[in-house]
């Protein structure tokens, strides 16, 4: 915190005004930062550029080389593929569903937990459990629970007289089942982040609002929500990006089926690359996805800023 402030002060100064000490500090700063900057470049930028470069070549696992440049062929092919477009739309729907539902549920639970005084640590521990689990394990466990005839969920439903639900085998239900399991797995992420935001809110404006005559609901709308907007924006964004990348759950639970009911785009891209062996086209699809996500990110960021 203080470091950042200091940096700003140093950087704001015209060069000539910097004293020798400040210059040395700056040099030292660069020296300290350079390994991590280099690493950042290698770890993040290099693969991105590699993927972009690959996306304009006919690069397959059979012939893994950059011999044939094919321009935007991979892009037009991807966008012209109705299956790819289907997975894009399906993913958009899935992302909207999980992000909004998890946000609503997460905010509700976070608000409730925020007013809890005792056993907070225990609630945290319980909440974090699903989050710490590998999505593959989550998928396997839920596949077991949701087994239509041998699973516990349908058994419990049968106790209250509900007919067995075809959780993963029905095209109408399967996507919602994935949404539900994703919520179970990831809602804690929202809760924890939002809770951190809530507990960092100042207490005083609430007291002022109470005296000003605001009901709990009004306080929530006029104080909590506006003050939480930055946290909400970041939470939604992170969750959105991760939701777009959902892959493991589908891989474990439905493989995109039944039919094409749960064929999310990340899983589709994975198959294009490693089953279809077409790395070039898969890279083009990833690039398209990246562009969409970046667009969304910028939009969400702007929108949230316009609200505050």
């Amino acid at each position, binding site marked *: 915190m203080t470091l950042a402030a200091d940096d700003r002060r140093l950087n704001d100064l015209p060069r000539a005004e910097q004293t020798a000490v400040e210059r040395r500090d700056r040099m030292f700063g660069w020296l300290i930062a350079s390994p991590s900057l280099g690493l950042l470049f290698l770890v993040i930028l290099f693969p991105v550029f590699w993927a972009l470069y690959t996306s304009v070549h006919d690069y397959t696992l059979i012939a*893994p080389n950059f011999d044939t440049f094919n321009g935007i062929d991979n892009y037009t092919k991807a966008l012209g593929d109705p299956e790819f477009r289907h997975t894009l739309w399906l993913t958009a729907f899935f992302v909207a569903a999980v992000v909004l539902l998890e946000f609503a549920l997460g905010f509700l639970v976070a608000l409730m937990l925020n007013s809890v005084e005792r056993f907070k640590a225990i609630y945290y521990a319980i909440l974090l459990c699903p989050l710490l689990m590998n999505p593959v394990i989550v998928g396997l466990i839920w596949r077991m629970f949701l087994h239509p005839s041998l699973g516990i969920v349908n058994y419990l439903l049968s106790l209250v007289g509900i007919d*067995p639900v075809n959780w*993963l085998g029905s*095209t109408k239900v399967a996507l919602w089942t994935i949404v539900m399991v994703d919520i179970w797995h990831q809602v804690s992420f929202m809760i924890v982040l939002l809770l951190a935001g809530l507990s960092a809110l100042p207490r005083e404006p609430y007291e002022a609002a109470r005296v000003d005559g605001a009901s709990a609901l009004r306080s929530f709308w006029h104080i909590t929500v506006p003050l939480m907007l930055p946290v909400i924006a970041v939470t939604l964004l992170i969750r959105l990006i991760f939701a777009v990348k959902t892959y493991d759950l589908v891989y474990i639970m439905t493989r995109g089926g039944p039919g094409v009911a749960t064929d999310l785009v990340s899983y589709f891209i994975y198959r294009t690359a490693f089953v279809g062996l077409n790395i070039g086209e898969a890279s083009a699809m990833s690039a398209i996805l990246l562009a969409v996500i970046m667009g969304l990110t910028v939009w969400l960021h702007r929108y949230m800023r316009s609200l505050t």
Partner: protein
Amino acid sequence: MLKKWLLAAALATGLSGPAFAETVNILMEGVPDTEYVKTLLPEFTKETGIEVNLEVVNYAEMHTKLVPQLVAPKGSYSAIVVDFYWVGEFTKAGWLQPLDERIKADNFDTSVYVPKLMDLVGRVDGTTYMLPFYNYAMGLLYRKDLLADEKNKTDFKAKYGFDLDVPKTWDEYLKQVEFFTKDGINGVVNQGLRPDPIAMEWSNYLFANGGEYHDANWKATLNTEAGVKAVEQYATNVNKYGPIGSASFSFDEAFNVMAQGKAYSYITYNFFRAGIDDASKSAVVGKVEIMPVPGTEAGKGGSLNGAWGWAIPKSSPNADAAWKFLKWVESPAIAKKRALQGGSPTRTDVFDDAEVNAKYPYAKALKEMLLTSHNFPVFTYTPQLVEVLGRELSLAVAGEKKPAEALAAIETEMTELAKKDGKLK
């Protein structure tokens, strides 16, 4: 620094020891047959002085682990095991060493292998790249206790006009499926999950109806009467005679239903036959038997073949040692020992062995199954074809596409893939 030290230490021990110990590295899948190989390894090391290091991973990881090592000029795997899915890809990419010269030099007899298996995971276009390791052809698991039940017998006869017995033809079997869907039991349990479970299982339906994937020139022959019937029958079995949810079952879930005694029959990989008699997993020990998937008429089988083969990659760091291992592991004695532990043989001499038959009475049925089995198209894009099949069949089962529509879509994509691979001119 540490690395240098270790290297020096390794060199020192190597030079001072009696001989430079060689190690054969193999990447394998965590399945029972791998375990059987593992138990026999000390014998090999005793005989040859060569250490064997098995890296055992699950199926999903294998392809991703293999490819970088195969692409590299010198990889870390001396020998590998190849699923028939990958045979086309691996040979097309030129990653495997031809074995013919070694076979000839050592007089290794490949004629004892079931011919269908040699076609699948042995020879490609006349060149031998692999030795068949174990088979996972699919067979029909059925409840012999239900067949033997007297009331069932009379009821069945009254309803269908012929005797209830082990099905001789596919049509008889389908009647039994219908008949046994009663009293809280399903006539069949299917594995309808995309892509491999449904594609593999459905292939049996296709063959059982007398269909094939393509003709001799790789022209697709799916959108035919046999193909349409196969899709219709499959959808009916899942939706009408199968348990709820079988459209999303993988083989383990389907097996569970069978093992809990909730279904009359289940077409699956033959290695599940042993599991059904394992009381820790099964409630129907001794009540289930396996047979070849029946065909259009008695004696014709509809089973889908499947197998893994041993191969030596071009990037193998020590191909000679690897070959020594392959020779040993596929020798009659060792192949028999593996089979006696429960392995799925690929050699006819092992199938015919008296000891093996004494221990596993169903060995005969398995051999029969292999002999009458059909192969899945093996080419570079086998996995992609499985993917397409999975998608379209799943759509058909869900009622979102008509059987003919789905088959037409498969044909189109299959033709494209075959063209891309140079199979179809």
